[in-house]
């Protein structure tokens, strides 16, 4: 029986994809299978309602490598008769999706924000023209790969483990790339994409030590500080893992406070899924006010500390 096959190297994202696949599988009359190349995911997939879990204990799969994992997934796709493959649209997931699509002659859409089944098939939305528009697209190939953004839905809930486990033996060529070391970008690593409250700062900040003003507000709101790209890459006032935007993270907080940010589309795409947006800017014409629920015209150096105080 043809199936929907899910894979992500990130646990939470993998179980979100599973949830999405279970939902779509019912509508499309497809079984749901998962590739647990990271062996520890295998049992969790079963507990969360996956019908078939493909796993392998081959040494080459110990660490993620796009080339090796693409080979593994292409073989599992064949063994499981996959019609649709869902991958997490992380950076690793994206480089895997492209390589796998080429290996399998499959159509592929990355960075999908939604994926729904409509009369004639699956329909996805994703940013286009640098985030100025959202394109609604569908694949027309018989085998389809969708890389879905993390936090697209809740992860599948754990329950009784019923699915079957299929131990596969894969024919894998080793990677030509040698991994030397990994260094975390942010020692206090925070989950920007999953955060309920984000205080975002941009070039309206004048000095690195002023990040503290945003941190104080974030802590009063039980949230985290995020930033526009230049603040992390050019100025290095915050770690790169805090970047919100097209090439950074996409936040989905309940509340986003954007201070000293003009609201260029490169940033806006990373925050426009927020439920409520508060903007603070001295320029009444700043674009950020057009995308805000509540705009406050004023200097963030005045507003943020007073807002923090008012919240305490």
């Amino acid at each position, binding site marked *: 029986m043809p199936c929907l096959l899910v894979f992500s190297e990130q646990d939470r994202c993998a179980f979100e994809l599973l949830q999405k696949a279970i939902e779509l599988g019912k509508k499309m009359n497809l079984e749901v299978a998962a590739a647990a190349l990271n062996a520890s995911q295998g049992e969790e997939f079963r507990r969360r309602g996956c019908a078939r879990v493909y796993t392998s204990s081959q040494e080459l799969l110990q660490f993620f490598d*796009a*080339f090796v994992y*693409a080979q593994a997934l292409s073989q599992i796709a064949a063994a499981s008769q996959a019609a649709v493959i869902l991958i997490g649209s992380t*950076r690793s997931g994206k*480089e895997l*999706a*492209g*390589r796998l*699509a*080429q*290996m399998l002659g*499959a*159509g*592929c*859409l*990355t*960075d999908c924000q939604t994926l729904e089944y409509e009369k004639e098939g699956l329909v996805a939305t994703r940013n*286009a*023209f*640098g985030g*100025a*528009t*959202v*394109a*609604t*697209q*569908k*694949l027309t*190939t018989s085998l389809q790969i969708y890389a879905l953004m993390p936090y697209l839905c809740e992860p599948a809930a754990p329950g009784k483990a019923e699915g079957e486990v299929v131990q596969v033996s894969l024919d894998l060529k080793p*990677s*030509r*790339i*040698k*991994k030397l*070391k*990994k*260094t975390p*970008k*942010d020692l206090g*690593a925070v989950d920007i994409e999953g955060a309920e*409250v984000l205080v975002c700062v941009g070039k309206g900040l004048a000095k690195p030590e002023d990040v503290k003003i945003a941190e104080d507000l974030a802590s009063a*709101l039980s949230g985290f500080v995020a930033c526009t790209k230049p603040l992390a890459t050019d100025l290095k006032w915050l770690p*790169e*893992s805090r970047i919100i935007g*097209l*090439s950074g993270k996409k936040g989905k907080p309940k*509340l986003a406070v954007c201070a000293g940010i003009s609201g260029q589309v490169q940033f806006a795409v990373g925050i*426009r899924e927020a439920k*409520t947006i508060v903007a603070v800017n001295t320029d009444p014409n700043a674009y950020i*006010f057009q*995308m805000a*629920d*509540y*705009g*406050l015209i*004023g200097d963030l150096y*005045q507003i943020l500390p*007073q*807002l923090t105080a*008012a919240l305490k």
Partner: protein
Amino acid sequence: MNIIVCVKQTYDLQQVRIRKETRQPVFENVPLTLGNIDKNALEEAVRIREKAGGKITAVSVGPETLEDTIKEALAMGADEAVLVTAPKLDSIESALSAVLLAKAIGQAGPFDLILLGEGSTDNYSGQVGPRLAELLDLPQVTFAKSLHIEGRTLRAVRSLEDYLEDVEVDLPVLVTVVSEINEPRIPAITQILKAGRKPKRVLSPEDLGIPIGKFGLQAETISNLAPLQNRKGILFKEGAKDIPALVKALEEEGLLRR
């Protein structure tokens, strides 16, 4: 060191406006340019050539206007260009781009390194690099934020969401770069003047044995509009004096935990 840099022509997205009534992007009078991150890839190629010598070939696929747009790459330091052009090659999907680029690279001669941006400025799909690596049977190093080449060995620091990864690989290799890798140079006027005289080969998809009509399309775009912004748009104009009103509004929405 022979370096191939794949670049893509796009509209200058900073100048694209949205028609409010229809939510459609307006491209009239918007100039064409090369992708932002493509320029980082080119800049990196130029820096490598400055140290190691060799030749940089810019390779691109697109409509005929590309013949003019590619001068930007030649002015920035590419030595020559191989282009695949046809009217139908405007905004094509990643799978077809990758196939045409692979064929065009075959025409450009032997190479040691292929550089691309991690994604195009317009579609930002990130597929072309990995697809091209698969077509050419090359190792892929994606999201590089620094590169260092010694002899036949390339070392890169990759920038993933939450960590950096140092990797090492022997040439030839395909590398995609992130924009943090460098600051692309603005070409001097003399370079811009010289660009028009640098060698440029212009091929058609048919020359490469890929008749466009026969290439099965993989994706269909149903609509492409600016997102609906359903925001309250309440503006407080009195600065700090309005903080209590803002706090009250957030409280009423249940956004403050107290």
